[in-house]
């Protein structure tokens, strides 16, 4: 057997040096379930769901953190593997209060998926009945410790993906808990509310306060768009139910943000539903603004433009375009100014 290949479920397949069993298997369309694995971060092997059999090894190996070696024989779907995964899911399910029908993440939960896949009801082990109190003193993020399986994905995301370094594993043994520095409430910690931890949490332990109760995962449709805030141009999914955005998540793997968002991009969407939105054209009359029809307002502006051009020339008109609106709007505005009004007095705050 050549050095760049190994045996995956009896088939000879190639791998790149240093590649993990998990990556090599996924490349070869072989499914290995995972919970704690988070692309782009160091694998921790914490959840023990990706266990596989490696010929010659006494114990099962975690596929995410075991590198392939030439000629290795890997079995991903044996009764032994199945039983071990099932047992581990059973343990995770019993570790907390996983009452899916009340959980915000139902339908968007890796644990729920695996419990179903391995047909587990969570009755094999005794459940703890004491949990740390839910942390939701801040306006955006809810951390429900009773649903945390301590997979560490949130910690990985915070420290390695967005590098905000706000949370870590704290305490030991049965007291284990994900904590901010000094175990302070989120809004009094280093946390910058990017919500990356919420996005990667495979269970209902971390959820968005604003999205709570607005929609079940299967009720929403996802629309891909671009963030309206800074010039990074992050790609995002709008989760929309009944024509209303209920949540925003990052577009996984997409350029430029590769699955990341910041606090503004993730949580700054609901201004569009503000009651203060302008809903009709307005015209000032005797110093007061009053509602007007489109025709009336458009006619008035066109008349004023014409009148100003006649009396003072086109250069007596100046316009500022918006650096926030779409390209097509700016194009139309400069076209109006140049080709209809006849002036180059068009600018935007390019410099701010």
């Amino acid at each position, binding site marked *: 057997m050549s050095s760049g290949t190994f045996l995956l479920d009896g088939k000879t397949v190639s791998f790149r040096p240093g590649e993990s069993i998990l990556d090599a298997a996924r490349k070869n369309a072989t499914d290995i379930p995972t919970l704690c694995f988070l692309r782009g971060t160091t694998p921790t092997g914490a959840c023990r769901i990706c266990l596989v059999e490696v010929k010659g090894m006494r114990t099962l190996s975690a596929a995410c953190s075991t590198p392939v070696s030439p000629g290795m024989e890997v079995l991903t779907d044996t009764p032994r593997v199945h039983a071990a995964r099932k047992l581990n899911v059973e343990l995770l399910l019993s570790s907390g209060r996983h009452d899916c029908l009340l959980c915000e993440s139902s339908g968007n939960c890796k644990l729920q998926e695996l419990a179903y896949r391995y047909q587990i009801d969570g009755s094999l082990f005794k459940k703890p009945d004491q949990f740390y109190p839910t942390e939701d003193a801040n*306006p955006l993020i809810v951390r429900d410790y009773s649903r945390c399986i301590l997979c560490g994905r949130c910690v990985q995301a915070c420290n390695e993906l967005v590098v905000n370094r706000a949370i870590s594993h704290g305490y030991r043994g049965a007291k284990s808990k994900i904590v901010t520095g000094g175990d302070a409430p989120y809004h009094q910690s280093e946390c*910058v*509310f*990017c919500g990356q931890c919420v996005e990667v949490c495979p269970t209902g332990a971390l959820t968005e306060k604003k999205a709570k109760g607005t929609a079940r995962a299967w009720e929403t449709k996802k629309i*891909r*768009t671009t963030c309206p*805030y*800074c*010039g990074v*141009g992050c790609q995002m999914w*709008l989760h929309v139910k009944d024509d209303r955005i209920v949540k925003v998540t990052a577009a996984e793997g*997409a*350029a430029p943000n590769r699955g990341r968002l*910041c*606090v*503004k991009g993730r949580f700054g*969407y609901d*201004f569009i539903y*503000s009651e*203060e*939105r302008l*809903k009709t*054209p307005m*015209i000032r009359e005797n110093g007061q603004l009053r509602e*007007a029809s489109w025709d009336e307002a*458009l006619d008035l502006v*066109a008349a*004023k*433009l014409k009148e100003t051009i006649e009396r003072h020339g086109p250069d007596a*008109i*100046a*316009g*500022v*375009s*918006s*650096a926030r*609106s*779409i*390209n*097509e*709007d*700016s*194009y*139309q505005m*400069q076209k*109006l*100014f*140049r*080709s*209809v*009004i006849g*002036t*180059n*007095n*068009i*600018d*935007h705050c*390019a*410099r*701010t």
Partner: protein
Amino acid sequence: MILVIGSNMTEAHPVAASFVKQAVLRGAQLYVVDPRRTALADMATLHIPIRVGSDVAFLNGLMHVLISENLYDREYVESRCTGFEKLKAKVQEYPPERASEICGISADMIRDVARRLASVKPGMLAYTLGITEHICGVSNVLSCANLQMLLGNVGFECGGVNPLRGQNNVQGACDMGALPNVFPGYQRVDNADARTKFEKAWGVKKLPDKPGLMIPQMIEGLTNGTVKLFYIFGENLANTEPDIRHVEHCLESAEFVVCHDIFQTETTRFAHVIFPAAAWSENDGTFTSSERRISRVRTASLPPGEAKPNWWIFKEIAKRMGHEWSAKSAREIWDNEISQLAPSMAGVKYARLRGDGLQWPAPNEEHPGTATLHRDRFTSGLGALTPVDWIPPAEVPDEDYPLVLSTGRRLYHYHTRTQTGRSAGLNDLLGEETADISPSDAKALSIGHGEMIGVKSRRGQVFVKANITDRIPQGVVWMAFHFREACANWLTNPAFDPITLTAEYKACAVRIEKVGEKTDQRI
């Protein structure tokens, strides 16, 4: 190696900052040049706290060292740049000792930084408004470019001079020709061929050939009567321009003001007509990011009430002035007009913008787009090294106003909060403005943390809570412009870069006072 200058990336461009921080975790060196000890500076190999407005002196000092110690990339400079001798003569006037006097960084540290920058390749330079918002903004940018060319760092992935655009579509608005001197795709209005091309495309006899006014000139024009009708689309000028009192006076003088907006703002108070506009997710269209990536914006819901897309409003006005425009959607505007008229975007069509969009230049429909500019040669031929001199800010501290006010943005808000102020949660995280001051200045005036203080400049005064933090150097006050009452722009100086007319938001002179003692009446 990454050099970040004048950019508070973790707050203004958080996701870009994440990539920088990740690079640091993987071993990249990071140099942060900023008067404030920003969050990014905490992760830096070195934080270099130059004085506000001393960038050119510092950069010239670095280049002095690179040239005198022969550390610059001679081969790159000889084969790809022009103007070396002139640059050399200029930076010779800035030995580290002199640069040090101006920028406050020791001569030894300047030498050390120059040597470090020369030791790794490629190196990336990223800047934001800390570079441009000065009366010497253009010189600052040229200096950054000079440095990167001397180091042989332009034209490579992970190299170059990278401005992070403040707003989502500043790049796009420029690309679209919302500028007084260029048509879409940077074709100059004073070029007869360009005009002929657009005259034909737009079906008009004659397009104006004189470059138009920039925003500060427009605003001045309102008071001196040269501008009668002011058309403001989606900008809150009454809060974002320096010296609010003056700007509002100008807006009041306009004969007629038209606004498009999604909310009433401080600026729409001056409007004679307001058009209600569709917002972000109520439109189909495109944004162009800092890296010239054109990405789709898609509709999630319909605009409220009778609000309409902005492009439609412009089209309707054109119609009423005798011009029938055929495009009936943003897609038609892009595919049938913009990409036909802007050669650098000729290859960009909506059908190609499905996944991750395209980075222009993409001159034809087979072109994959361009991630890195100036790859083998500069777009304009040779890279021009341009000697520049340091000048101080327009207003420097004196006896009456002994501190420097510098301004910027904070993480939880965006501009004048028309959007973030109406997004649940964000306002709770940051509900008011503060004036950030150093512990030593606070002590000198016995100001306590959280105490209300007056901040006063020659233009105005605001009352705001003091935030005492060792991230601010002595002699500096730092504020943002998110909150109307305590908006830094009551104070900022309307002094502008002579070329771009960018205002000096980053430096003016102020004094701070304890409230309760003698403070002037609220202006």
